């Protein structure tokens, strides 16, 4: 039910800025972003990160509201993710 | 006789349409009406409010209402900004429990309408504003439910006519929810 992948980084998500446009969701090449059930102070759903982020930056680039930050690990690390998430 | 109604809510609550339906119904009954709506830009979740003046003679009041006879509050977030305009003892229909009870209960003729619950019961929470207008019409005898029905049909564009029936149901439910008129719009003095 789980697999391991190599990742070079991860994201921060400033949910307060999110306007819920969902552009980041299809942008993520490994589908680790999903929209929240909860709403932020603007009344919007926002993205939540499941394990598996590789720090590729796609979400960062497509987000019109500057919600994401990208961090690069000093050393790439291996993590285990639920099967299918990284497909 | 000139009466003012302020209605306030947040974007997407249908406040604009509800005001229009009431205004058209009044027009159908030969009344004079004047209304001004504002809503802050394209951002969702911003405030939206409307003012409506209705009368049995041509209206000479300016369109920005300084002091209102009645109000409908759909959402607590922006109701506070409008509060000062409602006359002491004026009629306030509150969308309960979205609008929270506070000192207003004493200052105004405060009537709670569970509009969201009623609308949800009819299958569409978004119809709450319509429920409120139905209730307002009954409460004030400003206009008949028949005129409201007719006005509803006139207020939707051709490609949305299929929604007329469900909206009329909202109006009717609101109307029915109020047991009897309290503030008569057309009575000389209260």
């Amino acid at each position, binding site marked *: 039910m789980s697999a391991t992948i190599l990742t070079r*980084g*991860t*994201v*921060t*998500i*400033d*949910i307060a*800025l999110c*306007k*819920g*446009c*969902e*552009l980041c969701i*299809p*942008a993520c*090449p490994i589908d680790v972003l*999903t929209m929240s059930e909860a709403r932020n102070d603007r009344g*919007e759903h926002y993205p*939540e*990160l*499941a*394990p598996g*982020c590789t*720090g*590729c*930056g*796609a979400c*960062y*680039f*497509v*987000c*019109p*509201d*500057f*919600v*994401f*930050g*990208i*961090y*690069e*690990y*000093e*050393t790439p*690390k291996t993590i285990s993710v*639920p099967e299918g998430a990284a497909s | 006789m000139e009466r003012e109604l302020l209605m306030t809510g947040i974007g997407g609550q249908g406040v604009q349409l509800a005001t229009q339906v009431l205004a058209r119904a009044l027009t159908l009954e030969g009344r004079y009406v004047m209304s001004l709506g504002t809503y802050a*830009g*394209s*951002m*969702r979740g911003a405030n939206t409010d409307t003012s409506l003046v209705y009368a049995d003679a041509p209206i000479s009041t300016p369109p920005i209402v300084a002091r209102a006879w009645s109000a409908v509050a759909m959402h607590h977030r922006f109701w506070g900004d409008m509060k000062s305009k409602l006359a002491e003892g004026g009629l306030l229909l509150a969308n309960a429990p979205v609008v929270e009870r506070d000192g207003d209960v004493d200052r105004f003729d405060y009537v709670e309408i569970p509009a969201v619950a009623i609308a949800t019961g009819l299958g569409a929470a978004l119809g709450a504003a319509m429920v409120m207008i139905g209730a307002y019409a009954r409460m004030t005898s400003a206009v008949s439910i028949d005129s409201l029905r007719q006005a509803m049909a006139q207020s939707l564009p051709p490609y949305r006519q299929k929604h007329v029936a469900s909206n009329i149901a909202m109006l009717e439910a609101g109307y029915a929810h109020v047991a009897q008129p309290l503030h008569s719009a057309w009575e000389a003095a209260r």
Partner: protein
Amino acid sequence: MSVIDTTRPPSEPARQKWDTRPKLLIDGDHDLCPGCGEPIALRCMLEVIDEMGLSQSAIGAVGIGCYTALTSLLDTDMVQCLHGRAPSVATGIKRMRPQSLVYTMQGDGDMVNEGLQEIIHSAARGESITCLLLNNGVFGETGGHMTATTVIGQRTKNTLEGRDAAYHGHPISMTDLLTPLGGVGYVARSTVTTARDIQRTRRYFRKAFETQVAGKGLSFVEVLTMCPTGWFLPVQEGPSYLNETMSPVFRIGEFKVDGQIFTPGA
């Protein structure tokens, strides 16, 4: 499914690779609509300026459209111009400060409608400035009206039945108009619908600014941007609408590099 805590940097040793917002933006909290493509393009431009080490020399001239709301958040010296007039203002700036990196930012309404003459004349004059066109095919700001780039058949607030070529005319492609002009050094068009498109957009900006620094004539980058509000679409459908209706009319690619015209691979 477990949710990672993304409110703070990772606990592992890591360095911040990209900050949430570009260095030349004071605040990321702006008033543009959800799903709007304009801030995405803006980020590309600002980051490229910064990466090229030109932050301290950039001066902008911005038109009037939704992006105007970003003017006061931009942390480069700026002139907020009138609708359509940015290229002339940029000309005056550049002529007095040839050492500065001068850029303009305009929408399709601003550049292709109200100010079509200004951009063409500035281009023919060979002004050493870089001009950004944010093309969403509508006046976003006024609520979604037809512009001179609205594609045939598109429904807008004042073309309720869709733009009809016989009544409303044909869309104008700025790259077609600017490419043949003598004073123009660089012409390209891209989009911001996917991360890959965005990388290309960044490449084009870099080449455009290099053209300016090298004094090779006016450089022009058009970016097709989503305007779900003006298109009366659910926000999520912005990118696909853009790809399906605008991209076929407005071809993506480079049209002129170092003053040489070429036809890009379709």
